[in-house]
């Protein structure tokens, strides 16, 4: 029993990382007044490029770097479209998701002639802490980084004047402008920064966790990260908790069938799909419970038009 708990903790630390990174990134973006619904697309494209670069160089750190870079570039695209061109942020995000999915699959087939997944690639070594015999906590350095980033972003958003200016852009851009804040530039940088953090999460999927790119590598995680943003009430510290909660159900969906199979024998075939619905149902239920009490940034999703 205690071993199960430790294993689940270890798995949750693995699954929560992308949710925390993307969640914190999206909190920065949304606090400035921009919605980026393309987190899913950034996960897919970053993880794909990370897999490609790691495959050809053999060095997962290069893969991580490229994944982050792709995140930044995606942020520049979304920021440009939604801030300077005043585009519809939701539509641009949906378009980006479709683009990222199409592009990654297209390149995957062109590079490896495989419709489902890429070859295995090197991973960034994880730290292993032996707790009891037969159970170790495996923790990736990126997980620690994610938690540190979340704390740092909380401090920046709520304890510094530049953080206050950013939040002002999301609450009342006109007042922020009157205060002397450049709303366009702040929102643009916030979008780029948010997408960059999401890019780390995307690269982590390959170089920190799974070790290869698959067609369904993200499988809605980008949207669970969005749910995490609402869960956290736009507070990066709570996003760590939210990442843990949502990550727990993700880990449960992987761990539970394995555990049940070894306990009772037999192999799940079709039933395995039922376990995979756990994280989505759990997310929906959790969001349904807490959603009444939250407070959205007031100018969220509305393009700022200067007079």
């Amino acid at each position, binding site marked *: 029993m205690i071993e199960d708990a430790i294993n689940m903790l270890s798995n949750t630390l693995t699954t929560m990382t992308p949710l925390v990174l993307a969640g914190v990134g999206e909190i920065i973006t949304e606090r400035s007044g921009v919605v980026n619904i393309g987190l899913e697309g950034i996960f897919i494209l970053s993880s794909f490029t990370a897999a490609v670069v790691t495959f050809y160089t053999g060095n997962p750190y290069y893969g991580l770097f490229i994944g982050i870079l792709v995140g930044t570039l995606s942020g520049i695209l979304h920021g440009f479209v939604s801030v300077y061109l005043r585009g519809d942020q939701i*539509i*641009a995000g949906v378009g980006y998701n479709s683009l990222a999915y199409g592009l990654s699959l*297209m390149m995957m087939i062109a590079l490896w002639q495989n419709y489902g997944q890429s070859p295995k690639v090197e991973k960034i070594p994880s730290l292993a802490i032996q707790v009891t015999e037969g159970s170790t906590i495996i923790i990736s350095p990126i997980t620690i980084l994610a938690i540190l980033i979340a704390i740092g972003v909380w401090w920046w958003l709520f304890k510094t004047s530049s953080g206050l200016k950013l939040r002002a852009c999301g609450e009342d851009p006109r007042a922020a402008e009157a205060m002397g804040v450049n709303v366009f530039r702040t929102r643009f940088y916030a979008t780029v920064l948010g997408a960059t953090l999401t890019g780390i999460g995307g690269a982590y999927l390959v170089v920190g966790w799974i070790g290869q790119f698959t067609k369904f590598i993200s499988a809605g995680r980008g949207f669970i990260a969005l749910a995490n943003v609402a869960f956290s009430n736009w507070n990066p510290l709570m996003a760590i908790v939210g990442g843990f909660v949502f990550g727990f159900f993700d880990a449960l969906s992987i761990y539970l069938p394995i555990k049940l199979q070894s306990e009772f024998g037999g192999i799940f075939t079709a039933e395995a799909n039922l376990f995979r619905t756990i994280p989505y149902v759990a997310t929906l239920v959790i969001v349904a419970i807490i959603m009444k009490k939250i407070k959205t940034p007031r100018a969220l999703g509305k393009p700022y038009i200067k007079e």
Partner: protein
Amino acid sequence: MSPKEIKYKLALFTRKTRLTFIIEKIRVKYVDYLTAALEIILSATVGFLIAAILLYFMGYDPYEVFSILFRYGYGNIGYLLSKSVPYIMTAMAFSIPSLAGVFNIGGESQLYVGAFVALLVTYYTVNPVLGLLAGIVAGGGLGLFISILRVYRNINEVIAAIMINWTIYFLMVYLITGIFYDPKIPHQSIQVPKSAWLGEFLSPWGRIKVSFVLAVIGALVIYYILYYTNLGYLLRVSGLSPLSARYAGYNPKKAVLYSMLLGGAMAGLGGALLIIGDVHNIDSTMSTLYGLGFTGIGIGLLGRNHPIGIIFAAIFFSGLMIGGQWVELKTGAPPQLTDTIIGIIVIALAIPYAYRMLISMIRRWRMK
């Protein structure tokens, strides 16, 4: 001036103003249509241009790929139209709520349940009409569920829809592989009995599927509801300005509920039409259904959320889809090229402001 003269002049004046008013009205509409057409053409051009650059860097000849894409994609009219059926319906599933200010990204799962329930009902009753109705009810119910979460629990409809999409996806894979599989072909679901299939008829343009005709009728019904009924007016006003809708005594919450119900019903009908009229079973990886809902979003946008526009946009996208498969056969370029083009077109469609700026820039340049 005699009273007769005054009367005559007055009549002349009113007729004149009325005429100028009508001309003005036509002119405004014409400008609207022109900008819309320009936006669509520009977005498509940007999409194809970027795709051409990508193809070039991947080592394919863009000219060859595109000529195959268009020649084969739009070659077989009957196949093209039957392919467009689910796209028309999922685009409507996006566009009706979109007009009411709701973002329905759940067309994917609404189509899944419509297809699955229709399959079961026609399998057991051998009655395609019951099957179609069941599909409509199932899809509409799921759409309504999302809107209830939005209205009464304040849940962002995008998050709710995506979670439901994935839940339904895995649930369906379980049901198809675990319970309702075909004993003879295990990687397929049970099949719609042959006597319940929707057939096809001969026309000057080749064989046309009955399901396409039904889809067009569905689109026309929605067109009527949206533009000629009280309900449609409620939806459109609430979408344009929830505040003025409330002032006028309408309840914008009702608009959200009704629009999602209608949208979901359309997606469900799309799934039912696809299963009963075209493919007749679902494979265990759901490859026949996967992605239809997401592509519908792009089609709805391209058709500018108008049912008639959607029919043409769906045919256009279906051609790209069919052409994409031919491109793979002929040149080896991956068929996901089509997904990529669609993604770029959708992003380009998100920025009408940029096009309006472009138009005003051209105008200013011409004035000089």
